[in-house]
């Protein structure tokens, strides 16, 4: 299997800020790499370098075997990019947007029109095809943007936070669309702030913070590092705290911590563990105010991997200014 994306030692400064600090990435053909990190971790900077929008200060990168710095035009023929900010012309209709992109890829007028019609159909935009895109909802605009990235059926697709800012329904729709693409063999680099999204879509995940990779592996491997899911419960009577801890520890066989009425336990068997805990507490007559199963969030991953919570830095703002 060949690597469709390969980046080595990418460094990028914005003034004093090191947006990328020696990032290495490889994405094998037909696989999905999730680049996971908080705002300002350097995700967008990495994407912009790999898609020829930005030059790295040092380091090398090839996409589909072509060097991004030496032959950007050749790279552009092989990639499709859909960004965090929908790159559509709001005055043009959906159809006109896609036709324009097709013609700029050099498809020719007739093929560009056919392709536009086909993609609008595929992304459920046929009805809105001849309305200016500024009348579209956020989700529709994002789908149109993704369609724009697919006009030339690129071998490599790069999606920069494809679901940030979307409502839950649009997010699920977007996931379906992305899964379809992956099923057809597209190589995908995806950035996201959500562990769940990387979990759902990516074969491999690279966690980045302050411009460097701090962990990589499959979603399961990462979650194992974090300790998987947790049960959070609140007892009705604070005096029951210690009793609850013992019962929970017996039921799930892992460490349990208690703070006041709150009891937290890492579990490995998810819903099964939850049921076991419920049965044990019920049998012992411990009354509960609340109980639930929580998946590890990006914050948990960060806390575990770096010892600090995911900070919101201003590097993305620096990217904005530089544009």
């Amino acid at each position, binding site marked *: 299997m060949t690597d469709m994306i390969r980046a080595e030692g990418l460094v990028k400064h914005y003034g004093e800020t090191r947006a990328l600090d020696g990032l290495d990435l490889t994405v094998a053909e037909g696989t999905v790499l999730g680049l996971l990190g908080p705002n300002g971790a350097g995700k967008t900077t990495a994407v912009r370098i790999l*898609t*020829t*929008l*930005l*030059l790295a200060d040092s380091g090398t990168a090839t996409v589909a075997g072509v060097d991004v710095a030496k032959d950007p*035009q*050749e790279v*552009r*023929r092989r*990639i499709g*990019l859909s*960004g965090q*900010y*929908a*790159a*559509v*012309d*709001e*005055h*043009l209709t959906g159809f*006109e947007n896609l036709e*324009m*992109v097709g*013609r*700029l*890829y*050099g498809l020719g007028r007739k093929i560009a029109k056919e392709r536009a019609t086909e993609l609008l159909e595929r992304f459920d935009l046929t009805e809105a095809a001849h309305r*200016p895109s500024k009348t579209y909802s956020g989700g529709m605009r994002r789908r149109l*943007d993704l369609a*724009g990235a697919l006009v030339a059926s690129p071998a490599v697709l790069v999606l920069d936070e494809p679901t940030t800012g979307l409502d839950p329904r649009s997010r699920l729709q977007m996931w379906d669309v992305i899964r379809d693409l992956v099923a057809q063999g597209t190589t995908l680099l995806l950035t996201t702030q959500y562990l769940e999204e990387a979990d759902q879509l990516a074969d491999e995940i690279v966690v980045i913070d302050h411009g460097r990779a701090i962990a990589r592996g499959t979603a399961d491997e990462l979650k194992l590092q974090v300790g998987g899911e947790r049960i959070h419960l609140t007892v009705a009577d604070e005096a029951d705290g210690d009793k609850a801890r013992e019962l929970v520890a017996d039921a799930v066989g892992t460490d349990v911590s208690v703070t006041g009425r709150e009891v937290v336990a890492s579990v490995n068997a998810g819903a099964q563990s939850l049921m076991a805990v419920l049965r044990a507490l019920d049998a012992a007559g411990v009354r509960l105010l609340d109980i639930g199963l929580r998946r590890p969030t990006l914050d948990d991953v960060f806390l575990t991997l770096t010892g600090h919570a995911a900070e919101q830095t201003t590097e993305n703002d620096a990217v904005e200014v*530089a*544009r």
Partner: protein
Amino acid sequence: MTTLTKTFNDSVVIAQRNLIKIKRVPEILVFVLISPIMFVLLFAFVFGGAIDAGPGLNYREFLIGGIFAQTVVFGATFTGAGIAEDMQKGIIDRFRSLPMSSSAVLWGRTVSDVVYNVLSLIIMALTGLLVGWRMREGVVDALAAFALLLLFAFAISWVMAWVGLMVPSVEVINNASFIVIMPLTFVSNAFVPLESFPTGLRTFVEWNPVSALTQAVRELFGNTSAMVPTPDVWSMQHPVLYTLIWVALILVVFVPLSVRQYRLASSR
């Protein structure tokens, strides 16, 4: 496909896209077309009585050539604003990630703005005819005058395109361009006769390309008087040639400069 045909095709696509915007938001056009009408009426009726164009010359007749020149120069701001706006929007990332010609965004914009200039010249000519201006040298000369105005407008568009790439936001464009455009158009023979300027300023006026353009247009439309001799300066004696030299000069400098700036603009 050769680079040249690729650039040409891509520029046509971008120009079409820009023209669609004018179709969708015609309000943009209303403002840029109304300002020349306003200028014609303002100068013709407010200042017309106070300014003496010279013996044998009606001020309104004298004025229109100047208004034409002034309007095409002001119109270039439109190009700068269009480019600055594009650079701020997400669409520029789409363009930059496509295997398109890197100068097409600029060529497309400057070419689509020629269409806008044609419209604005038509409106101005009609307003001029209403207030008493006439083309007295025949169709060929009149067409030559309009062609010269469009060429100069196209060249100035490239200057403003470059400015549009340099400014941080669209709002700055108007201020930035006024600093250049106001002196160029007002310290010229566009509104008052060249003879009325004091000696020091007069040399600037004589060699100002806007003066030459105005002079050229007046001659081609036959809006000059035999009783007012053309100033004895090379630029005023050969206004068409002098204007064309400026057009060439501006394009030679600002086309490569703007294309380079476009490539740099977001790859920092």
